[in-house]
């Protein structure tokens, strides 16, 4: 919308159309989609930061306002165009387990049986203890990136897709692979093609183990023996229900069984096989095959069902691993999948109950671009629904979003993420520890409850007072300390000072209601920052 231009001189009146045109150009430079034009620029900027990022961090508002929301969206959709700060790169570099592939992690930290040792209880315990560093480093990396990375949308989407393809860190061997899973199967495809993302998760040992497909075996196949002697439907079912078609996507129990048969033999090399290979001197070749290319994924033709199958009404000729690829093609390009994913994205980025018009438009874009996530998001971020003010600041933040956005807004440097992880766990959202394959929800119904409000406010108060030990040595360093030293470190006062309420108001003041602003102004100065971070407006994005 354009306001009338005030002018008095006849010369100018004649130029009004030209001025109007110029004005349109100027306005459209910051919001060419048009839907956002009527919204004050502060609100526009905070809206994109609330949705494409984990909320504003000091300096972000200025950046978005200076480049314009459209340019910001464009930047965020091409994360590689944004350089990472050296401090973040250095921090990530210290996390050594993040550089290891799934098989390397298994060799380095796996159960003692792999090394031919007797797997007595104590030895298993010791190995498990030693391996804790993997989950610690994975969580550390995830949180530090979420807080500090300027590629915020990438971090939002990594979290989104990890949830979509959830894996539970405490299920058996998955404690070894959680970091590798995110790094190798989720992160590279977060803004890429859904088909690639699907295949990468399907072939990663973390998923193969989590949903049991590594044991899924054709009953009468030559390789069927021991615990590997029959079908296991677990992955096939969740693959359709949660990962692709959705529960109402139009498949039957028969399709579940067929898909399970298609995926027989999809697994990873088991310790026994590796030992045999090593004994036979195959280690070198196996290294090349497993360690670099495919994270240890291994298709075992001896346990595969080679019969020809009818899946979702389409005939798939018995051919081995290729059947799975064909099934993924069908699933990824299925209208139900387009709809299911579009609904999830619209729910995450717009509203708990997303408008049908938007879901339809995204589904269409998805099918037309053959599952190009970046294109679908681009459509979403330029849709009238995304810019409809009735949805602004109405998404109740998940515990993950609340904690990260609070730390970002406060601008507190974080070297110790434990208080943040602890808070997420207490709010029912422990990172990498969602036990069920459906992942965490992102709706108000799931997260708003009496205890959550109490806990969030307690957290906000401690954070704003500068009293969370966020500047303690990082997790790994703490682990290596002696007990006495660790206690001293815990007892040390955090050095972060209280958060400045004026800076906070500058950052998120645009979203606060007049009542909230009044209550904050009328309170003691020491309570102002806690009240802002614990306000109803800050609980929502």
């Amino acid at each position, binding site marked *: 919308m354009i306001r009338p231009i005030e002018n008095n001189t006849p010369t100018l009146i004649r130029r009004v159309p030209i001025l109007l045109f110029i004005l349109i150009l100027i306005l459209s430079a910051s919001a060419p989609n048009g839907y956002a034009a009527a919204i004050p620029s502060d609100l526009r900027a905070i809206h994109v930061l609330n949705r494409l990022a984990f909320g504003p961090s000091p300096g972000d508002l200025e950046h978005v306002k200076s480049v314009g929301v459209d340019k910001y969206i464009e930047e965020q959709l091409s994360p590689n165009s944004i350089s990472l700060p050296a401090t973040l790169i250095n921090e990530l570099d210290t996390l050594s387990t993040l550089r290891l592939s799934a098989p390397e992690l298994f060799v380095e930290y796996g159960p003692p049986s792999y090394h031919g040792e007797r797997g007595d209880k104590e030895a298993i315990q010791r190995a498990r203890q030693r391996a804790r560093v993997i989950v610690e480093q994975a969580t550390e990396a995830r949180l530090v990136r979420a807080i500090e990375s300027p590629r915020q949308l990438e971090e939002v989407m990594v979290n989104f897709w990890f949830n979509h393809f959830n894996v539970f860190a405490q299920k058996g061997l998955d404690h070894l692979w959680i970091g590798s899973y995110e790094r190798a199967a989720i992160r590279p495809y977060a803004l890429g093609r859904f088909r690639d993302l699907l295949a990468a998760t399907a072939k990663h040992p973390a998923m193969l183990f989590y*949903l*049991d497909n590594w*044991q899924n*075996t054709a*009953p009468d196949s030559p390789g*069927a023996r021991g*615990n*590997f*002697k*029959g079908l*296991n*439907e*677990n992955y096939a*079912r969740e693959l359709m*229900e949660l990962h692709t078609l959705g*529960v109402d996507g139009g498949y039957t*129990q028969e399709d*579940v069984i067929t898909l399970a048969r298609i995926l027989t033999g999809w697994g990873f090399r088991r310790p026994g096989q590796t030992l045999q290979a090593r004994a036979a001197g195959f280690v070198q070749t196996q290294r090349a095959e497993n360690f670099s290319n495919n994270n240890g994924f291994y298709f075992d033709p001896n346990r595969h069902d080679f019969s020809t199958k009818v899946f979702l009404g389409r005939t798939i000729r018995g051919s081995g691993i290729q059947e799975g690829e064909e099934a993924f093609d069908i699933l990824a390009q299925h209208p139900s999948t387009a709809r299911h994913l579009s609904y999830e994205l619209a729910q995450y980025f717009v509203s708990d109950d997303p408008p049908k018009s938007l879901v339809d438009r995204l589904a269409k874009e998805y099918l037309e671009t053959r599952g190009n996530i970046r294109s679908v998001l681009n459509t979403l971020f330029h849709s009238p629904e995304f810019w409809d003010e009735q949805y602004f600041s109405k998404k109740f933040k998940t515990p993950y979003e609340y904690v990260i956005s609070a730390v970002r807004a406060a601008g507190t440097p974080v070297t110790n993420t*434990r*208080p943040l992880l*602890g808070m997420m766990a*207490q709010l*029912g*959202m422990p990172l990498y520890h969602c*036990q*069920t394959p459906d992942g965490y929800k992102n709706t*108000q*119904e*799931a*997260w*708003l*409850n*009496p*205890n*959550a*409000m*109490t*806990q969030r*406010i*307690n*957290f906000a*108060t*401690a954070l704003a007072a500068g*009293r*969370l*030990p966020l500047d303690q040595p990082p997790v790994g360093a703490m682990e290596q300390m002696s007990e006495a030293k660790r206690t001293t470190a815990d*007892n040390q*006062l955090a050095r972060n000072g209280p958060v400045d309420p004026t800076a906070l108001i500058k950052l998120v003041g645009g979203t606060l209601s007049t009542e*909230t602003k009044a*209550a904050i102004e*009328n*309170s*003691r100065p020491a*309570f102002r920052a*806690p*009240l802002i971070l*614990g*306000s*109803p407006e800050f*609980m929502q994005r």
Partner: protein
Amino acid sequence: MKRREFLQLTLLSTSGLLLLGENGWAAKAIGDDKNPKRLVVVFLRGAVDGLNVVVPYSESSYYTSRPTIAIQRPAQNGGALKLDQHFGLHPALSSLMPFWEKGTLAFVHASGSSDSSRSHFDAQDYMETATPGLKSTPDGWLNRLLDVLPGTRSATEAISVGPTLPRILSGRAAATNLPLGKAATRPMPLDRPEIQEAFDRLYKGSDPLSVAYREGQTSRKQLLSELTEEMTMADNGAPSAVGFADQAQKLGWLIQRDSTIKVAFFALGGWDTHINQGSVAGQLPNRLKGLGETLSTLAQALGPLYSDTVILVMSEFGRTVHENGNTGTDHGHGNVMWIMGGNVRGGKVYGQWPGLSGNELYEGRDLAVTTDFREIVSAVLESQFGLSSTQLGKVIPKGPKPSRDIREVVRI
């Protein structure tokens, strides 16, 4: 700053509490509501294998279908604990046998949902809304129950143990959630009156966040003060139980002390045993052992109130009759429901047993459902809370009428 103050403001632990003073439990242990009836619902998320909980040992097809994971017949080594001529209890649940013998534990076998979904999430949803096949139901049946119960509403009328509110308790009526873990009673910033007053001004409206905030404050004052008192007493006595039994114990104390609590809920996970389920040892037996201890601890902690409490244990569906190729079981249909409490006519396995041979199976693979779970819930609500048929219709809309047999489960 001293360590104590530091802890007050650090939030590595769960909810804090107000100091006792005159708000202590003793002052208000006598509530205004004289009806002592209580209901505790325990949900086993992930679909527990009911055929290995209450074992149909008289069925030969049970043994042929489960060559490695079956529980042997009673009197055999590691065999089921005999319940009657047909059924035996998994030996890992031996802690519940005293309740069975005293007649306060019953089972309804071949029970479950009328909907055929084998999706965990849909099936749980249907069981928590009590509207199988209908996804648009906005509220859970435990919440609708609160709406029809007599007496004044309070935030602590229904509590869920844990960090989130489950679907079964979502809805119009106030309900609260409390993590009851070890750190539950540590002091927190919001315990300081001046901080609380400041936040009260931000949350005085009628919006959902303000309502939740105030419910959180109320429940902390009412419940956690009681808990501290009990915990202090307990610390001088027996060592605390391990695992979830610890939280069940606290829940039992709370229910016994706070007459405003009518309904409680908690969920336990880890039942989705697709691989290596185990027979007498392994994953499922470990979980069952913990569950048995949790339930018996809860019953003990309820004290005299156990006679007025019904504990209902349910799970979204059962598991396949045949074990799969990985010594586990896949998603099935019919299951067993557990009912415990002083007024339960226990020592009996209720329901109609459909059998396990080929043509008796649901869709050729699963235990059939002969008792709708809503029959059992309805029967419990009728006898426990004296609901009229109109009231029952509001809580369990269009639910099937409980059979005569099922009506017998709980004494009026």
